């Protein structure tokens, strides 16, 4: 098997991957970069991000405030050295994006405009209306086109990390168009494959979010860090799970229950101001509380029977109302036009005249491939950045608008460290890599093309995985519910071996990729559920009904899930604390 080689391989062509590719182009245009992406880069899920990206730029804000908000928002689980690197490099990264053409909203004087987001004490969210991710991704992609040292492998599906001599030296990938499995060599490899929201049934995540990079690293022996922390975004459209951005609340939208009551005031998030009060919306208060607390408040309202019963074609769904009518058509069209477009198309309501039905929806994985502050994993030659990685800056709950910035800062950082690593490790063992890729090809043919007769179906296993994750590993968890989910996942992994596919052809075989993705999803789900079972405390998005308090004594630590032949092995690692000692998270108090 031929080996196509590059200095650096990047798996994933979304925000983090493209930022990394550009960083290498800027660093040293003589280095060759291969970007492997299972979709055309501009289809990557970064495109769906709406509200904005956080970076300190206005005089009333400070790096210290950004760090503090991020750490408190993450319930003191973020590593503070990483957070500091993040907040200090964020402004520079955002300005670069501006120089690459991103159409940021502007102040009348021409400087970049910012808006407030949940859990922030000052406005620091840069935004391009409410299609920030879309504009960032397209700016990055279009900019990446000018670097001739970047070779793209569009619609190539990563199958396996190729290792030799104790380090990752490449990737085996399936070229969708031809069905060929090919070996790609790289002195360093960066995983930028995004999250794994599709382990859950109701998610904002795109179909492609199947935890590919997480599973690849996990299988290569890298631990998954803090996987139990899964963010529910409080405002998703019922039915589809399509995201209604936090910017709707940042611009002044309110959440009300079936009585029209702003229920958040009952959950330790401060007191509401009238929507026409010039001080509304107040930062870090009410609707601008952090996502974990807002999603939890919804569940409490549901228990009290205060949610709205919405009749849909799929049955009755519980929702609350996100009301933006008081903003008026003009402001809605200028600041959150996509919210209107989505609500009109997918909920059949016009937010200018009607409140939007919403409910919490799985949105983001705080956990991921464990990396250090430079994006390096525990396996030499392997780096990770973006949602698939856990550095960690997000801890137990990510603040809205930190993720877009994260993929820039850590996309660039991991690229720089990969460049260094590649310089120190100039040789790759082509013969070994080709051999491994050939083995992988044989294994795939044997498993999916020659096997068969298994009674299980992809859709069946996926549905059961989705259901058990939601019922046992959702917003509120217990020992019993988690144990049930872990058992179920163990069973599903076994039954997955009996899945067979009907498509045996080479060209664009999406049934094959769906099957491999389901394998990735099961690995990610396992890491989530077992890590959640092991963490006997409540922190941020991980709420244990049987352990309702935070327990810094035992759990001010990152969980690390290692893959074994049986259940994952869970270990822990201390959080890095520099200058912000753990304290209580306080919201709803005016500064």
């Amino acid at each position, binding site marked *: 098997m031929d080996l196509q080689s590059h200095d650096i391989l990047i798996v994933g062509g979304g925000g983090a991957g493209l930022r990394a590719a550009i960083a290498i182009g800027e660093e040293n245009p003589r280095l060759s970069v291969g970007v492997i992406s299972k*979709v*055309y880069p*501009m*289809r990557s*899920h970064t*495109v*769906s991000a709406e509200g904005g990206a956080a970076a300190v*730029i206005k005089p009333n804000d400070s790096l210290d405030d950004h760090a503090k908000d991020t750490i408190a928002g993450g319930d003191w689980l973020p590593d503070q050295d990483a957070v500091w690197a993040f907040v200090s490099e964020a*402004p*520079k990264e955002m*300005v670069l994006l*501006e*120089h*690459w*053409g991103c*159409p940021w*909203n*502007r*102040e*009348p*004087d*021409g*400087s*970049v405009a910012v808006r407030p987001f949940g859990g922030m004490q000052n406005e620091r969210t840069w935004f391009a209306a409410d*299609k920030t991710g*879309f*504009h960032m991704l*397209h*700016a990055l992609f*279009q*900019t990446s*086109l*000018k670097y001739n040292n970047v070779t793209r492998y*569009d619609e190539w599906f990563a199958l396996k990390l190729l290792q030799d001599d104790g380090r990752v030296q490449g990737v085996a990938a399936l070229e969708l*168009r031809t069905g060929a499995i090919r070996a790609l060599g790289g002195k360093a490899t960066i995983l930028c494959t995004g999250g794994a929201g599709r382990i859950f049934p109701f998610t904002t995540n*795109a*179909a*492609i979010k199947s935890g590919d990079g997480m599973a690849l690293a996990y299988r290569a022996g890298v631990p998954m860090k803090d996987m139990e922390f899964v963010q529910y975004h409080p405002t998703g459209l019922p*039915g*589809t799970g*399509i*995201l209604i951005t936090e910017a709707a609340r940042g611009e002044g939208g309110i959440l009300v229950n079936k009585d029209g009551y702003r229920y958040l005031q009952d959950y330790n998030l401060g007191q509401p101001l009238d929507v026409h009060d010039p001080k509304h919306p107040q930062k870090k208060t009410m609707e601008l509380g952090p996502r974990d607390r807002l999603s939890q408040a919804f569940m409490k309202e549901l228990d009290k029977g205060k949610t709205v019963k919405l009749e849909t*074609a*799929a049955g009755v769904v519980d929702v609350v109302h996100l009301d933006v009518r008081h903003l008026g058509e003009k402001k809605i069209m200028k600041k959150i036009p*996509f919210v209107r*477009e*989505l609500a009109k*198309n*997918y909920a059949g309501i016009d937010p200018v005249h009607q409140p939007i039905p919403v409910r919490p929806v799985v949105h983001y994985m705080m956990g991921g491939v464990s990396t250090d502050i430079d994006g390096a994993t525990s396996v030499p030659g392997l780096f990770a950045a973006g949602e698939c990685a856990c550095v960690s800056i997000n801890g137990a709950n990510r603040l809205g608008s930190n993720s877009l910035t994260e993929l820039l800062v850590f996309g660039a950082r991991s690229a720089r460290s990969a460049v260094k690593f590649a310089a120190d490790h100039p040789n790759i063992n082509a013969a070994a890599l080709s051999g491994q890729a050939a083995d992988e090809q044989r294994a795939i043919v044997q498993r999916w093309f020659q096997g068969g007769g298994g009674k299980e179906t*992809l859709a069946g296993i996926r549905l059961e995985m989705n259901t058990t994750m939601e019922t046992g590993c959702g917003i509120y968890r217990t020992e019993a519910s988690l144990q049930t989910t872990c058992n179920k996942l163990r069973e599903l992994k076994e039954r997955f071996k009996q899945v067979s*596919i*009907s*498509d045996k*052809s080479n*060209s*664009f*075989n*999406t*049934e094959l990729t*769906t099957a491999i993705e389901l394998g990735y999803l099961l690995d990610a789900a396992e890491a989530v559920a077992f890590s959640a079972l092991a963490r006997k405390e409540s922190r941020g998005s991980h709420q244990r009904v049987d352990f309702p308090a935070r327990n810094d004594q035992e759990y001010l630590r990152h969980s690390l899930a290692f893959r074994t032949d049986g259940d994952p092995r869970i270990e822990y690692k201390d959080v890095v604390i520099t200058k912000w000692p753990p304290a209580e998270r306080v919201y709803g108090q005016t500064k």
Partner: protein
Amino acid sequence: MSKTITLEVFRYQPDQSDEPRFQSYTVPYREDWVVLDALNYIKDQLDGTLSYRWSCRMGVCGSCGMMVNGTPKLTCAAFLKDYYPKPVKVEPLTNFPVLRDLVVNIDDFMHKMKEVKTWLIPKKELPMAGSGEYLQKPEELAQYKQFSMCINCMLCYAACPVYGMEPEFIGPAAIALAQRYNLDSRDGAKDERAEVIFSGEGIWECTFVGECSVVCPKKVDPAGAIQQAKVQATKEWWLGWIMPKAK
């Protein structure tokens, strides 16, 4: 018996046959379902061998463009209720080579993006704010914002008979993207792009059929972009003729 709807789906499986065919599937009819939901139902429950692209299912990733009853559509935004009870015909986007079933080859567009330089090439002297960003007033942003909304879904190319007949035509989305940068107050490379977009394969191929703008799901109006570029090109030609040094 609950309601059902029939989908007539274009099949092309190069491994089995060189000839395309149509295959009929009956799926449950649900009022809130889009064509993509029906395809996913087919894939999960009826026939795993059907191939198509999809991802965000919220009209922004641009993957799921197909011909629905002869019109280019994002299938995640084409509701079954708009076709029920009649059958729905689903085909790959026209004017593109088909790789498999509903999957088309868009390499040509990807090359054209690079040809027209869809990236910001900044002017030499640009005013900057204190924090380092180039200044751009809201009214300057408004000049190009519409053309920056293109999601590269290729519906416009499928609607363009000129592209169908002359594949060398740079085409609606790529020209609109070139205009997006040309009109950006920070950009200074209009002349570089002019070589390509004012060429024989560029704007002058366009006969203003206008269907590209009709099918555009993001109201980018590529037809408008092309005509505006024609006016600009004409103006520059005359200026160059009258005042050779005026450029």
